[in-house]
């Protein structure tokens, strides 16, 4: 297969996994997901000669950089949107009880948010993208040993935050299906 064919196959196979990766990190800004994903694959297309045999962790690494750029690039528009959005919130019209408020999600997210960005990312890649240590290393652009060490430390810190928050034990229902599709 040519590089173009390999790229097209990776695009078809992993488009939705990359979309989930981006959506998980855009914190509900669903309207921006599609644009960032388009950017990820545009960058991946330019670098298609580098596409590894198992492309998904590599694509996550590209997506990670695109998200960082997106956060910077959206600055001006974001500020205006946020200002108008805050006005709206001040009017109390956006305050809607979320069904998620009662699920484990909210307090686990709070615990996660207390960690450093590096800790958060290694944990998200492991728990949400379900990458193994070697794959996490590809996504983060570090060695496997470093990835393993980061994960170990991040888990310990997350555990400490969870223990500190001491929430009511969550019900064990609604466990999502296992992520798949990565190589």
């Amino acid at each position, binding site marked *: 297969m040519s590089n*173009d064919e390999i*790229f*097209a196959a990776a*695009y078809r196979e992993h*488009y*939705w*996994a990359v979309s989930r990766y981006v*959506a*998980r990190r855009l914190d509900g*800004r*669903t*309207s*921006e*997901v*599609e*644009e960032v994903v*388009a950017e990820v*694959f*545009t960058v991946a*297309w330019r670098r298609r000669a580098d596409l590894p045999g198992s492309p998904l962790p590599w694509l996550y690494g590209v997506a990670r950089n695109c998200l960082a750029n997106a956060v910077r690039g*959206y600055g*001006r*528009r974001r*500020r*205006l*949107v946020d*200002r*108008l*959005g805050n*006005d*709206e*919130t*001040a009017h109390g*019209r*956006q305050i*809607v009880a979320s069904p998620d408020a009662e*699920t*484990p*999600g909210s307090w*686990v*997210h709070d615990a*996660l948010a207390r960690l450093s960005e590096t800790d958060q990312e290694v*944990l998200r890649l*492991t*728990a*949400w993208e379900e990458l193994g240590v070697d794959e996490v290393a590809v996504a983060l652009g570090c060695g496997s040993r470093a990835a393993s060490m980061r994960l170990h430390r991040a*888990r310990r810190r*997350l*555990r400490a935050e*969870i223990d500190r928050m001491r929430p009511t034990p*969550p019900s*064990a229902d*609604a*466990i*999502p*299906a*296992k*992520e*798949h*599709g990565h190589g």
Partner: protein
Amino acid sequence: MADELELLRRADPVPVDGPHYGDGPLDHRAERRLEELLHGRPADRRTRLRRLRARLPNGGPVRAHRARLAWGLAATAVVTAVTLTLVVSGPGTPPAVAAPRPLVVQADSTPVPLDALADRAQRQATAEGAPPLRKGTHVQSWSLGMSDSEPPITLPTERVVRWKADGSHTELVVATDPRHPGRPVLDDGGGDPHLVEDGHVLTRQTYPPSWSDAPPESPPPHDVAGLRAYLQEAASYHTKLTTPELLDAVAELLDHWTLGARESATVARLLADTQGLRQAGQVTDRLGRRGQAYVYDAPGTRRMLIMDPSTGAVLGLETTFTKAEPEYGVEAGDVMDYNAWMR
């Protein structure tokens, strides 16, 4: 208690079996972008921006990058056909870059309640010779572009999408401003705003067959509840649409379909059942068409829906700033976005 990774797994905000981004075939837009990459024709910035449609919370659409806030103006010509001829302007022709103003509601007009309009539309839906639903769209839009270093500019475009029986379709986007036929218009292709000839082709593309059956690619339903669910899915929202979200979703629908009388009647009934839309009176839209205006006020912005008074068809949607945002070069009364849909 489960271990920390298990707890985190359960807190996945976008699970693979969730309502969005689940594995499966690519949707139409993802297919299109792949085609663009493979055939060396990266998506025109304008159409990529159009797809983005980052939304102001309860305010209106804002487009990304050179964030495209839109605005409107008063047109002189009635555009009833595809007007995509390239008109070369002579030297000295003043460019069509004047700042547009919001639509003005006629002071002496009697507003038609949306409920009455929806009833009218319903009667029209069963009339002989009523227009049928057609896939594809024809829309003239004026958008406000923002950058960090320059004042906002207006970017007028006309977009025509036509579908063929084999499932393929063509999209043509030209720079044109029907208020000023023949005059050069602004474009920001390549990053810097510059004048191009009226009718300058921004993109002309043919796309291979697509069989996506998810909203907004699938035909809109004819019942209000079905349409409401359809619009929610088309706009990628998990929860019941707010009024401004609903307006955005209707715009999304009209960017894909040219509605027939039945579909217009369903949309009109859905809007009549929607809270917060205030009847304002008669306006003449930017293409010279008379319509009834219905307004939704959000903090900082105002949305104005323009509907055909006899058929209930949505003619246009305007978003206007109601307070100045000096930091962004925006004044109260600047129109952020105007779309005028045609058959």
